[in-house]
C-alpha cells in the first residue's frame, strides 16, 4: 500500500465532473451511491480513449490495434485478479454485472451439480438477483431453497443457519453487504461452516467490493460476483470470480465465438479458462475502463476512503436519529456507509419527490429486496448511501431538506 496523504474531499471531488452539475437549480447532492457510483474523469476518458485511438476486436486480430486492445483487455483482468486476491487470471471472468455472474453460476454449475432433493441456502437479505436465478435452477433441477432468517435490524441468525446446513446443502449464496440496509454479513464464518458441511459458497459482492478489502483466497469463497458500475467503473461490465478447479469442471454458459477451441459440425471443443465463459465479443471498452476504476481506488486507498466514509456515516446517523419519528433500520456497528430509514406516517415516495426537488438524490422503495421488506413489515425505506466524494455539508443539506419535506407533508 502506498503512503497516503491526508484525505482531502475537495480534491477528490475535482476528479468527478458530474458533481458540478445542478439539479432543479440546486447543487447536486448524490446519495444514491449504492445504486451506482459516479465515475472519475479518468474512467470516462479511458472509454473514449479506447474508441478514439485503438478500437479493435480482441484476441483474434493480427494487427496493431487488435494487439493493443487485447493487451489492455487482459491487463484489466490482471488488475482485477490483484484487486481481489485471486490466484490466477483464469479465475476472473468478465460479465456484464453481478446479475450475470450469479446467473452464470446458477445455470452452469447448477445444471451440472444440482439433483432432486438438493438444497441451496440464501438469506432474507438477498437482492432479487441472488434469489431468482436460484429459484429458476432449483425448479429445473428439483432442488429446494432455504432462507436464513434475520432479526429486526437485518442481522443474520447464524444459529438458524447452522441448523439449515445439512448433507443435502450443495451451495450457500450470500449477500456480503446488504444493499438495502448496509449491514455486513459474517461471510468468513458462513464460508467455514458451509465448507465443513461440504457445501460451496457464492458471495454476492455487489455492495462490498467498493468498501471492504477483499481477498478471495483468504475468504476462501468459491465464487464471487460484483459489478463495475458500483466501484467507480462503467456500467455493463462485471466480474465473476470462481476457483479454478470449479470453473474448469463447469460446462460453458453460452456458446459462440471466443469460447471455442475448435468447431466442427460434429463436435466442438471449448477454449480454456477464462475464455470458456466469455462467448462473443465482450464489452471491451468498459472492461478496459474497469482497470482505470481499480487504479483510481488503489491510488486513493480503500482503507483511507473507508475511514472517511465512516466519518460521514457516524455524522449522518447521529443527525438523522435526532429527527422525530425517524427510525434507522440496520443501525448496527458492523455496516458500510448506507443509512436506510423510515419515518412514522410518511411514505418514502413522498420524501423522495420532495428531496429531489431540493437537488438530493436518494433511493426509496424496496431496493430490489421485496422479501426483506416483507420480513421487516414495511413497504420500503429511504436510503442514503455515501461515497468518499460526499461531504458533511451535504449531509447537513439532507437533514434540513428532510425537515422541510416533513413540514410540507404534515
Amino acid at each position, binding site marked *: 500500500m502506498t503512503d497516503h496523504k491526508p484525505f482531502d474531499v475537495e480534491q477528490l471531488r475535482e476528479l468527478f465532473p458530474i458533481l458540478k452539475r445542478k439539479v*432543479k437549480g440546486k447543487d447536486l447532492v448524490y446519495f444514491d451511491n449504492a445504486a451506482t457510483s459516479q465515475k472519475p474523469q479518468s474512467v470516462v476518458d479511458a472509454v473514449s480513449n479506447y474508441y478514439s485511438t485503438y478500437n479493435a476486436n480482441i484476441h483474434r486480430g493480427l494487427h496493431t490495434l487488435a494487439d493493443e486492445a487485447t493487451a489492455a483487455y487482459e491487463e484489466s483482468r490482471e488488475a482485477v485478479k490483484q484487486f481481489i486476491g485471486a490466484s490466477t487470471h483464469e479465475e476472473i471472468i468478465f460479465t456484464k454485472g453481478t446479475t450475470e455472474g450469479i446467473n452464470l453460476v446458477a445455470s452452469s454449475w447448477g445444471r451440472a451439480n444440482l439433483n432432486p432433493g438438493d438444497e441451496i441456502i440464501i438469506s432474507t437479505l438477498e437482492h432479487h438477483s441472488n434469489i431468482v436465478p436460484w429459484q429458476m435452477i432449483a425448479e429445473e433441477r428439483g432442488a429446494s431453497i432455504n432462507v436464513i432468517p434475520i432479526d429486526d435490524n437485518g442481522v443474520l441468525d447464524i444459529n438458524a443457519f447452522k441448523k439449515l446446513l445439512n448433507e443435502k446443502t450443495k451451495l450457500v449464496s450470500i449477500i456480503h453487504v446488504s444493499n438495502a440496509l448496509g449491514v455486513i454479513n459474517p461471510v468468513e464464518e458462513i464460508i467455514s461452516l458451509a465448507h465443513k458441511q461440504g457445501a460451496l459458497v457464492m458471495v454476492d459482492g455487489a455492495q462490498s467490493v467498493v468498501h471492504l478489502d477483499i481477498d478471495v483466497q483468504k475468504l476462501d469463497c468459491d465464487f464471487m460476483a460484483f459489478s463495475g458500475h458500483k466501484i467507480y467503473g462503467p456500467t455493463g461490465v462485471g466480474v465473476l470470480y470462481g476457483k479454478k478447479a470449479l470453473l474448469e469442471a463447469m460446462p460453458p454458459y453460452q456458446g459462440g465465438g471466443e469460447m471455442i477451441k475448435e468447431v466442427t459440425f460434429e463436435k466442438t471443443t471449448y477454449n480454456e479458462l477464462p475464455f470458456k465463459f466469455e462467448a462473443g465479443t465482450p464489452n471491451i471498452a468498459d472492461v478496459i475502463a474497469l482497470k482505470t476504476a481499480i487504479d483510481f481506488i488503489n491510488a486513493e486507498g480503500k482503507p483511507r476512503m473507508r475511514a472517511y466514509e465512516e466519518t460521514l456515516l457516524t455524522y449522518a446517523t447521529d443527525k438523522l436519529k435526532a429527527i422525530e419519528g425517524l427510525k434507522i433500520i440496520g443501525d448496527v456497528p458492523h455496516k458500510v456507509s448506507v443509512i436506510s430509514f423510515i419515518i412514522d406516517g410518511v411514505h418514502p*415516495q413522498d420524501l423522495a419527490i420532495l428531496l429531489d426537488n431540493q437537488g438530493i438524490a436518494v433511493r426509496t422503495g424496496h431496493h430490489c429486496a421485496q422479501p426483506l421488506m416483507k420480513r421487516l413489515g414495511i413497504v420500503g425505506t429511504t436510503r442514503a448511501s455515501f461515497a468518499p466524494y460526499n461531504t458533511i455539508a451535504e449531509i447537513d443539506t439532507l437533514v434540513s431538506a428532510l425537515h422541510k419535506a416533513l413540514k410540507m407533508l404534515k
Partner: protein
Amino acid sequence: MAETKSISAIEQVLIDDFSLFDTWEEKYEYLIDIGKKLALLDPSYKTEEYKIKGCQSSVWIHSTYKDGLVYFEGDSDAIIVKGLVSLMIMVLSGHTPKEIVDAPLDFINAIGLSSHLAQTRSNGLRAMIKQMKLDAAAWGS
C-alpha cells in the same frame, strides 16, 4: 355543480389555481392539501383488485357508472400521489366514457408540477391515467 364543465374547462380551472403559486414548495403544499381533502375510499375497494400496478406507492381506483356518466373514487398511501389521484378525479369524474377516453390531459404539464416530478414514471401517474381510461372504456362498451 349547477352546470357540468367540460374536462378541458376543469383542467383550465386547475391550471389557473396552480398559477397563483410561484414556487415549487407552494405548488406541492397545495397538491398535498388537495390530497388530504380527497373523500375517503370505502376500505372494501382497497384491495388488489382495484390496485394499480406499476406504482412505487399503492394507488386504488374504483369507478361507477350512472346515467351515462362515469364516477371515480380513489386513494393512495403516499400523500403526493394521493394529490394526483385527487386531481385526476376532479378532472375526469362525471363525464361520459368517450370524453374520458379522448381527454388529452395536458394539464399536468401546464400546472408546472411535471418538471418537479422526476419520478413521473415510478409515481404511476401514467398507469393511473391508463387505468381510468380503461375503466371508462369498459363502462362505455
